């Protein structure tokens, strides 16, 4: 049994939750003092959950994800984050960053570019690593160049840009701006709401491989089954992704409240697209060194992480 922090989908408050592996699957019980207890299936395959899913190993986390604002410039249906115009104060953010000075800081939100003090925050932060954004702000070339001046003119642009199966035109403009400047981004996040969308997402990634070198795939499905007739289990996503990319590298796998992620390396993607399909999920090499996150004080409620550092196919 694993205890965690979750978000109540009715009142959007952080509440305690318990995850339990049983012979019938993996279940989460949310304990909301206002809305009551709720129980739902998180994953049907215990094997998958044990091997890829939730882990609690705080000692090995070397990055911290920090929400700096609740504001956002989009209104995505699948987003679980409570939306408002409140921003966290710069002092509070910098104090937290200083407290975890031995960890890399990922800035998130809401949409962090909506924070009016974003540039000041980054310039005062010694351990800033990545900005998790939808990229709309970087569709403006002037804003993009200012950001580059601030963070240093390196090939790797320190952002993780969310790309959906039907990407927003501003996101695409941002990617083409990055392409014109010869930049690459760490991760592009592909939000997958159905198995059909996986193929679509991989096609889109295929168009931006020179920019998006490492993709983090996530399923924004609602574990409580309110947004879909059928719960999409992450093991199914894995199988589907592997059927398209038989050999790939997973660099990181995080299990959140209702979000799981898979990372794929673009450098292998191209050469592997044509390889024969697989029929089950297979993995090699699991290490206990997640690159992200989890915080002792639950600053951001993703309390688990597992890094699967290499994914090797058959060697005959």
């Amino acid at each position: 049994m694993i205890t965690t922090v979750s978000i109540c989908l009715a009142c959007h408050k952080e509440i305690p939750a318990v995850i339990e592996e049983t012979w019938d699957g993996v279940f989460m019980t949310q304990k909301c003092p206002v809305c009551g207890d709720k129980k739902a299936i998180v994953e049907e395959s215990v094997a998958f959950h044990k091997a890829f899913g939730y882990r609690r190993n705080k000692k090995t986390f070397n990055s911290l994800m920090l929400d700096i604002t609740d504001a956002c410039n989009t209104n995505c249906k699948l987003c679980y984050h409570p939306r408002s115009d409140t921003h966290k104060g710069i002092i509070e953010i910098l104090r937290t960053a200083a407290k975890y000075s031995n960890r890399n800081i990922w800035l998130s939100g809401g949409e962090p570019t909506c924070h009016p003090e974003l540039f000041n925050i980054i310039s005062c932060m010694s351990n800033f690593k990545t900005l998790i954004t939808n990229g709309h702000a970087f569709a403006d070339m002037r804003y993009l160049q200012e950001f580059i001046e601030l963070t240093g003119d390196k090939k790797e642009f320190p952002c993780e840009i969310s790309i959906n199966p039907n990407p927003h035109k501003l996101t695409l403009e941002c990617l083409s701006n990055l392409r014109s400047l010869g930049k690459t981004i760490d991760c592009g996040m592909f939000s997958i709401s159905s198995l059909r969308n996986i193929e679509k997402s991989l096609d889109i990634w295929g168009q931006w491989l020179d920019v998006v070198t490492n993709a983090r795939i996530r399923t924004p499905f609602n574990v409580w089954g309110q947004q879909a007739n059928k719960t999409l289990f992450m093991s199914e996503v894995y199988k589907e992704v592997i059927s398209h990319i038989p050999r790939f590298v997973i660099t990181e796998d995080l299990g959140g409240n209702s979000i799981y992620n898979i990372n794929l390396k673009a450098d292998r993607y191209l050469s592997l697209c044509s390889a024969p399909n697989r029929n089950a999920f297979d993995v090699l090499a699991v290490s206990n060194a997640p690159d992200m996150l989890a915080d002792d004080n639950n600053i951001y409620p993703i309390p688990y992480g597992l890094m699967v550092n290499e994914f090797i196919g058959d060697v005959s």
Partner: protein
Amino acid sequence: MIDIAIIITPKDDETKLQRCLYSLRNEQCPIYFIDGKQGKIGHGRAESLNVGRNPYVSFVDPDDEIIPGIYGKIRANLGFYPEVLYHNELIVDSTNGTIHHGWMVDYTTIQVVPERLRGFLWDSQNQRFAHHRGVFKKESALKYEKQLSKLHECCEGQLMQMMGTNGEIKYLNEFGYIWNIHGKNTVMEWI
């Protein structure tokens, strides 16, 4: 050449699973995770025969470990593609941490033997058999799929016996598997 199948159940310890996977990290074999069903280990083993594309399958338990490099040695020794290739294993008694070498005489009794005897041959008459330290040719093992799915105890050992009685079996004199014993059901006999 070899697929590794790990049957995982809710009762399995994740730390041991991590150690198990860590020991497998450089073996260059795809690992398949199979969902275990309550009281049906044989069912999981039978299911393992149907995953993956490689001709051989090896069963690793999530609480055991392999000795790194063994699958490379097995690949190099498969030669004429025997039905079963088996190797030595170290038996670790987790109650007192001692390490033994031995074989099984029935499904619950391990005969502990001195290390000098480790190069023993397959002994179907005396019904000594290896634990699941080996690789099985899927094509041959599938003949016993139905029987295997009904077994509950030491199914991989029983499968090895069934396959070894009718087919070619090869022995590789290498230590390749670390079997952690922590159940109360296993009895040890010293010879």
